[in-house]
């Protein structure tokens, strides 16, 4: 290629690039300061806002267009932004994840939906071989900022292919970031941070909280930085740490403990990779008693890393072993859906064990 050609090529791309630059988020003076919404509304709002703000953002996946997604997370988006920006794909998770990688390399900001976390499997190689490693393997020459959104977790009596919590697979894949909000506030803030960030992010949405989790959300633009846990309740006697769908159970267990005069600190990790070691260690060091809660099968779940790290780091402060409450090491069952899930009772039991140690 001659120098002139090179110049021309660059200019063309830049021109194309310019036409798709993000606009700064505009404050809207007429708006109230907060709005009440459910977790799924927050996800929907998050995508809508990013689609408005940044023409590089595209939303796609199976049935996300006219259908609005099987949970309606993308409802109304195609109507507002058209089929070029919000579209259905063929039924192939490999194609969906892989396409997101290629788009991101060419400067777009894809948000891809995988219909259920249980169906990432066919896209696993794209995630682990392409998305996770592109920046590293190219020495930073190529990057793929993208978001894979997917409903995960149990409690909807969906059997094992509509209930699994596979986040540990992706936490164990360096190069991917992994988050799981449990509140509308976090869902919106983390989604914005993920879309605006420069890395591939697995965005797990605890489906049983889609409508159950309701809350106030600022109307002004904000982000929730990846890697920061939320202390949901301060406490001094014991730390209950979880993320995703189990959070309401942690809160319930904390209330039951409060009724017995026990002051529990409740921490929502929100972000798994990276995870907030500082907040967790401070809490563990303070209370000396920790219960970790996750609904994923116990062996190899993400809390293994947290437990291992806590005892490595604040061993001397521990007054009792760090206990895990987790899913069972079985495929996710159907009829015993509720027995499988941790639940407040099981958390409370673990807490009592730790307290009486």
């Amino acid at each position, binding site marked *: 290629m001659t120098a002139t050609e090179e110049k021309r090529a660059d200019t063309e791309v830049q021109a194309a690039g310019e036409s798709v630059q993000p606009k700064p988020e505009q404050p809207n003076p007429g708006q109230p300061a907060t709005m009440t919404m459910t977790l799924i509304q927050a996800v929907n709002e998050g995508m809508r806002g990013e689609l408005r703000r940044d023409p590089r953002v595209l939303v796609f996946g199976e*049935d996300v*267009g006219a259908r609005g997604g099987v949970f309606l997370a993308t409802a109304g988006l195609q109507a507002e932004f058209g089929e070029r920006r919000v579209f259905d794909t*063929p039924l192939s998770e490999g194609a969906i994840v892989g396409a997101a990688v290629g788009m991101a390399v060419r400067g777009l900001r894809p948000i891809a939906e995988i219909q259920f976390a249980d169906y990432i499997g066919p896209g696993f190689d794209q995630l682990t071989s392409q998305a996770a490693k592109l920046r590293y393997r190219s020495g930073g020459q190529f990057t793929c900022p993208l978001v894979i959104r997917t409903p995960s977790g149990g409690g909807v009596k969906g059997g094992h292919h509509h209930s699994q919590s596979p986040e540990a697979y992706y936490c164990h894949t360096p190069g991917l970031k992994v988050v799981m909000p449990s509140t509308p506030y976090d869902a919106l803030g983390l989604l914005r941070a993920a879309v605006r960030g420069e890395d591939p992010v697995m965005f797990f949405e605890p489906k049983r909280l889609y409508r159950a989790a309701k809350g106030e959300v600022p109307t002004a633009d904000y982000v929730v930085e990846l890697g920061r846990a939320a202390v949901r309740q301060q406490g001094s006697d014991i730390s209950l740490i979880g993320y995703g769908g189990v959070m309401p159970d942690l809160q319930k267990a904390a209330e039951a403990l409060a009724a017995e005069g026990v002051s529990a600190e409740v921490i929502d990790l929100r972000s798994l990779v990276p995870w907030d070691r500082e907040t967790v260690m401070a809490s563990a060091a303070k209370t000396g008693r920790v219960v970790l809660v996750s609904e994923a099968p116990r062996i190899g779940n993400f809390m293994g890393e947290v437990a291992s790290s806590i005892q490595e780091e604040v061993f001397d402060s521990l007054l009792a072993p760090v206990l895990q409450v987790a899913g069972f090491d*079985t495929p996710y069952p*159907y*009829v015993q859906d509720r027995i499988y899930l941790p639940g407040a009772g099981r958390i409370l039991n673990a807490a009592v064990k730790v307290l009486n140690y």
Partner: protein
Amino acid sequence: MLEAFPTQPFQVILEDGHLRPGATFDQTPAQLRELWQSMTLVREFDRKLVTLLRQGRTTFYAQASGMEATQIGIARGLRPGHDWVWGYYRDQGIALGLGLSLTDVVAQMVGSNNDLNKGRQMPHHSGSVASRFVSGSSSIASQVPPAVGMAMAQSYLGLDEVTVCTFGDGATSEGDWHAGINMAAVKNAPCLLICENNQWAISTPVERQTRSESIHIKAQAYGMPGYFVDGNDVLAVQQAVKELADGMRNGGGPALLECLTYRVGSHSNADADAEKNYRSREQVRGWTDRDPITRFEKFLALQGQEIGSQERADFVALIHRQIEGAVQQAESSGIPGWQSMLDDVYSDTPVHLRRSYEALRQEQSGQAMQVQEGA
């Protein structure tokens, strides 16, 4: 002899119920009636189960309505209990056609103690080793490579069985669909790969699933014959399946068969409200006008074997009674207990599951504290 890569789907019965000129059939009148009964069973099963769902007695349902000729045609083209089927969630018609009892299928839908699968899967995942109908996975197209592997085993063992693998039109986009079919071709495995092309994958029409002119033409990518039948013509499907399966028994290789049909119900009850957003009532009506059971009834009438209105009413009433009986049987058999949740993960019970068992035993027997649950 079925023709590969035809431009028009193979038909035995024309839309108006007449026998296609040149077509033949060898079913006895009793066999023809049985076909009608089986298709009607599938249709009424849908109706009854949708009612039960509304009553809160099941949690999920996906109709096969409109696809009865395809599913019963497949089942009747095979040797039940001899040939194997790896199907998918919408295949209740094949399951019933292969000889799973109403009790079996209903128990699976309920997840009750008398479910052959022990209540381990959501509705629509029947399986029966006696009927050689494999309990499926919800993961679309994931049945294809295993079905091909099974056919490879049959050929290795010198058995005269064939394996049928069914899937929807949407499934053809998945990588494993391709991986499996390619393997079948290379290994000349006696696997009959059948696409139940009902033209929709939830909200995605087949034209946006693939740009190929048809599904069966995809067989060319594998050096395999592709066949095309009218999936609303039960005799055509049965004849095609039988001819292809018998060819495989005698050493023939795999084939792809496309049955063109239509999903007249919603994707599932979860989709019933949303459906209006993606397909027109006119399109659906166009296909209800081409109802496979109605067509077969016209054919029977033209053959002098009309289904009388009393006969129909009696048969439908019988089915509903039987289903009601199956539901009651399922309900009264109870739901598998917590112990069952920990069984069948492995052939044995490794230490970590023994520990879980012990922990759950304590919890469930009330030795552990309880917290008030519920929203």
